């Protein structure tokens, strides 16, 4: 029984990683209408920036804050240079560009910092906690804490602020929003910047657990994708729930179903997604809006 619980906790932990990146993906989509395949790689790059600043002697939390700020700028700049020019082009061209960004950021990290893993300091250093039969590490706790805080903050942003409302409208109906007087381009700039910031936050939170390397989030983006889809690509809460479900599901499947070894675990996640989509095409929490691609 204790193995089961431990597996569930382990699944929740890795699920939280997926959920955090899924949050960034969904936020980007909801505020700009674009699915950014490079979200994970940009997050890793930002994490490296934090690491580098810390390695140069900057106090840890200042380094993180600096990285978040830089990510905001980088996200906005990337939008301006590579996505905005394609405003009238087919969505597939935009997808292609984000794939190109994927290669760029991944290779850049590889080039500057090398392929070997680096240690990343814990956010909340200290011993693990015991909850009955289950051990909860500090890393796990900090991931959940930050994930929860971010979710609440984003939810409030979208549902209860003017900026959030404007972002949603701009992404859902850019032409109309422009007609109605919304500064659509500026809203998209903000959207990409904040999405990159969330990615950076995800990166610094999970790096202590996963170990910082250029490929740290290589497969994660696929899981995050699956999680976001499961939750219905429009729902922040759905992304988080989706991530946790995917994490727990694949962990349990990998442990208890012998045919599914470590390398096929991801197929479990995607198989579940397929089943869900066949039954509920807009995901568990999604509303039946059109998801463009």
């Amino acid at each position: 029984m204790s193995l089961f619980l431990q597996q569930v906790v382990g699944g929740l932990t890795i699920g939280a990683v997926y959920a955090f990146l899924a949050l960034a993906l969904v936020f980007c989509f909801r505020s700009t209408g674009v699915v950014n395949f490079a979200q994970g790689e940009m997050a890793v790059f930002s994490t490296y920036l934090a690491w580098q600043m810390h390695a140069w002697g900057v106090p840890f939390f200042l380094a993180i804050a600096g990285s978040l700020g830089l990510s905001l700028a980088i996200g906005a700049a990337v939008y301006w240079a590579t996505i905005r020019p394609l405003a009238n082009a087919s969505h597939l061209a935009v997808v292609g560009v984000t794939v190109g960004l994927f290669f760029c950021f991944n290779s850049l990290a590889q080039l500057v910092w090398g392929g070997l893993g680096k240690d990343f300091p814990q956010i909340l250093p200290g011993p693990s906690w015991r909850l009955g039969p289950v051990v909860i590490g500090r890393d796990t706790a900090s991931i959940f804490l930050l994930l929860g805080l971010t979710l609440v903050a984003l939810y409030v942003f979208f549902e209860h602020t003017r900026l959030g409302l404007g972002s949603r409208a701009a992404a859902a109906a850019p032409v109309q929003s422009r007609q109605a007087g919304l500064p659509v381009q500026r809203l998209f700039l903000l959207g990409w910047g904040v999405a990159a910031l969330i990615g950076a936050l995800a990166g610094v939170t999970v790096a202590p657990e996963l170990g910082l390397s250029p490929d740290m989030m290589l497969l994660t983006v696929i899981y995050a994708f699956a999680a976001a889809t499961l939750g219905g690509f429009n729902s922040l809460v759905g992304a988080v729930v989706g991530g946790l479900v995917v994490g727990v599901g694949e962990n349990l499947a990998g442990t208890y179903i012998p045919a599914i070894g470590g390398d096929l675990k991801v197929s479990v996640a995607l198989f579940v997604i397929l089943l869900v989509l066949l039954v509920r095409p807009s995901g568990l929490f999604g509303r039946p809006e059109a998801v463009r691609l």
Partner: protein
Amino acid sequence: MKLLEVAGLCAGYGRSEVLHSVSFDIDEGEIVVMLGVNGAGKTTTLRALSGLVDSTRGRIVFGGEPIRGLAPEAVVARGIAHVPEGRGTFADFTVRENLLLGAWFRSDREEIVRDIASWETFFPILRERRDQRAGTLSGGEQQMLAIARALMSRPRLLLLDEPSQGLAPLVIRELFGRLRELNRERGTTMFIVEQNARLSLDMAHRAYILQAGEVATSGPAADMRDDENVRRAYLGV
């Protein structure tokens, strides 16, 4: 000084020019209607005013200031609100959110709340359906929502693109009645392009007729409505 003066406006899409030197003006407090058949260039005219379509030549002067070439956001900020063809409501957002979007660039929170209450009174259906998704409203209700949303920006000039489109005659009658009331009670200046000649000429003060991208004739609306020759020649009525 006229509220809006347009002189020699040429505009179009890419290489094809739709408007060939269009001139008209609007006084504060007027309802002006621009009539014409499909393809005459009515929608293009409104879009050129709003900055949604590039104009190549001509002058657009609003409140004494030239506005040709401004971005749509800037035009809205100057006080021109555009209700596009097909309503342009944000279908996936609630009625209330639509109204809030109309007032998006305003920062006076209390006044915004007051305005919402005011328009909900003027169009009671909006209060009834406040939390409903706009896409679930009927055509007529969406049109009223679209107008209310445009009014939320407290515009000096309201542009309406074929507000009667897709609506039943009874609904059109009611809608135009409300518009006339709006103009009378609050002095809202309106520029309406329409295909439906009869009802709109009843409501307007002056009318222009657009034909193949040019202003063919103009005059007091009542005269146009009563002049059979004009109606037959230009409107096929």
